[in-house]
């Protein structure tokens, strides 16, 4: 077995509130990612999936503090000094953000944005860097890259800008790509193209990827394994090809069920009742219990552990019973 590329163990993020208290946004997240592997991180807003990504890049709000451990190729990310952190951000990870319009400096040309890291951090000559940028733009399917380099972000479409963002990450050749809802801000027709480009580029270059999305199907399409998050915790983690068949946590089942399908044999469309909660809003027990149709009094009082089940890991106290009941109805 190879050494993991990224390893999170017991990652917890608390944010200080105005009144001097603290809110937990992320609680005891454990994850490992092998080099070249793609992992999906799926959940509703507030589930902590973006906070996980922020913690991995140490891009937390000033009032937030992270405990636990984040290891990138064995190096302790939370303990890095300023220089190490810069090198890690420069060569280790690359981030594709949700909204390229907001995440690319609007006052500078696309070319300047693309070559900035190469020129400033790696001492590549400007001419050489621009040539590389043009080549990568062509690779991500942008026509006339030379002209695009001279344009400003407000002069191109959102889909094009997201390709520019992806190109900027590819230029840095990191070992790990973190993609935070990379297609949510785009038109539906563009979404598929952008995901396809991201997937192809990653495979070609053998980069690891954490793909963050609220769209379970999208995650299943591009990732080998998928982790489902709820209220700042991972509730289920298993390989993408078996998740459809073997999903065991009531929340994952809900996500699968609340997905409309044209397949006539599929289970009826069932939305999850109630609204998603954040980690700090949940009680002492299972955070999903208030919305769970299988919940008992015991679920509300004690937090369930993350346990191996049926080839994956699941955080549910009644997983055995629920599984048995489901098998019975299916048979």
């Amino acid at each position: 077995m190879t050494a993991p590329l990224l390893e999170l163990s017991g990652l917890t993020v608390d944010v200080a509130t105005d009144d001097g208290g603290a809110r937990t946004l992320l609680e005891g997240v454990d994850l490992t990612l092998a080099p070249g592997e793609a992992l999906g991180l799926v959940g509703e807003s507030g589930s902590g999936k973006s906070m996980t990504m922020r913690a991995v890049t140490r891009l937390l709000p000033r009032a937030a503090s992270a405990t636990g451990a984040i290891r990138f190729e064995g190096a302790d990310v939370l303990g890095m000094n300023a220089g190490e952190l810069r090198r890690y951000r420069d060569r280790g990870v690359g981030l594709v953000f949700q909204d390229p319009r907001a995440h690319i400096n609007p006052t500078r040309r696309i070319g300047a944005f693309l070559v900035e890291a190469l020129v400033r951090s790696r001492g590549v000559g400007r001419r050489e860097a621009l040539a590389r940028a043009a080549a990568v733009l062509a690779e991500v399917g942008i026509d006339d890259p030379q002209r695009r380099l001279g344009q400003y972000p407000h002069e191109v479409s959102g889909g094009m800008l997201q390709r520019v963002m992806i190109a900027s990450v590819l230029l840095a050749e990191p070992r790990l790509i973190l993609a935070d809802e990379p297609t949510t801000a785009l038109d539906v027709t563009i979404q598929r193209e952008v995901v396809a480009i991201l997937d192809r580029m990653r495979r070609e270059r053998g980069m690891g990827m954490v793909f963050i999305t609220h769209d379970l199907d999208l995650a299943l399409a591009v990732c080998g394994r998928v982790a489902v998050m709820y209220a700042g915790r991972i509730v289920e983690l298993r390989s993408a090809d078996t998740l459809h068949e073997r999903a065991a946590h009531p929340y994952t089942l809900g996500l699968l069920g609340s997905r409309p399908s044209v397949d006539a044999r599929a289970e009826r469309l069932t939305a999850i009742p109630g609204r998603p909660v954040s980690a700090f809003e949940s009680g002492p027990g299972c955070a999903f219990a208030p919305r769970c149709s299988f919940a008992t009094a015991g679920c509300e009082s004690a937090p369930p552990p993350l346990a191996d089940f049926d080839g994956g890991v699941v955080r549910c106290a009644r997983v055995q019973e629920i599984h048995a009941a489901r098998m019975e109805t299916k048979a």
Partner: protein
Amino acid sequence: MARLLLHRLGGLLTTLFLSSVVIYGSLYLAPGSPENVLFGSRSPSAAARAAVRRRLHLDQPLPVRYWDWLTGVLHGDLGTSMVTGQPVADRVGSGLGNTLLLVVMTMILVVLFGLAMGLTAALLPGRVDGVVNALTSVSVTVPSFVASALLISVFAVRLGWFPASGLGQGFGGRVDGLVLPAVALAILSCGFLARVTRNAVRDQLEREHVQTALVRGLPRAVVLRSHVLRNALPPIITAIGLLTAGTFASTLVVESAFAVPGIGQLTIQSVAQKDFPVVQAVALLLVAAFVVCNAAGDLIQAVVDPRLREAGSTS
């Protein structure tokens, strides 16, 4: 860019033209005829009055007089002072240098200290920010005449470091005499610029594109310079334009407080003496300075922010 330039230039000329009409028109619609100024308390004979009116071209209709005056102004002829009989251009010219020097000195102080304080406050949240904020809150309420009085009492009367009024000989003497007036003008503007700078930089620090730059591993200095500061510039430039314009207006007060022979003091003197040709000229000059400063601010802003170049106007 060229279109914006033309648009701005057009707006600028329109404003200048309209204010020249307002300034010229209103002064000649004033109660009491201008020639009475010359006669003072004496009651002149009808013939003498008519002669004076002819000499001042007051016998012609207002639009004609305005046209003559305007063409004169465009040729550098601002008319003749009714009090001293000197050409207005000479009186204005002798004061203009001092006023410009005063404004330049003031703005150097404002930009240096305002930017420094604003940046410090933005980059050091918590206690330092609090102290700077408290300072600027007070300084934006200190009018230039109160500042003048305080400065004179401490640095001129008590310590004797600078003259309390008037300017010395030569360039050094002028600078020496203008230090206190410049500081008096700068206090309010410094606070204002510091607040604008702080808020603009804070705003940019929290922007997503700055996070992108950080997460790409760029050195902090580069992120600050090419992303935070660069993008924070537009409101800062607008503020500097506004403040330069406001400083021209405030020279009316400070030049009087320190007896600086500039156009601010000339304006107040001419108003007191009802020397209309001089008042017109200096008022128009101040308006021009005011409008040009604001427009210049807008244009420089468009150079910094490409998104503003296509827009026709910023208002």
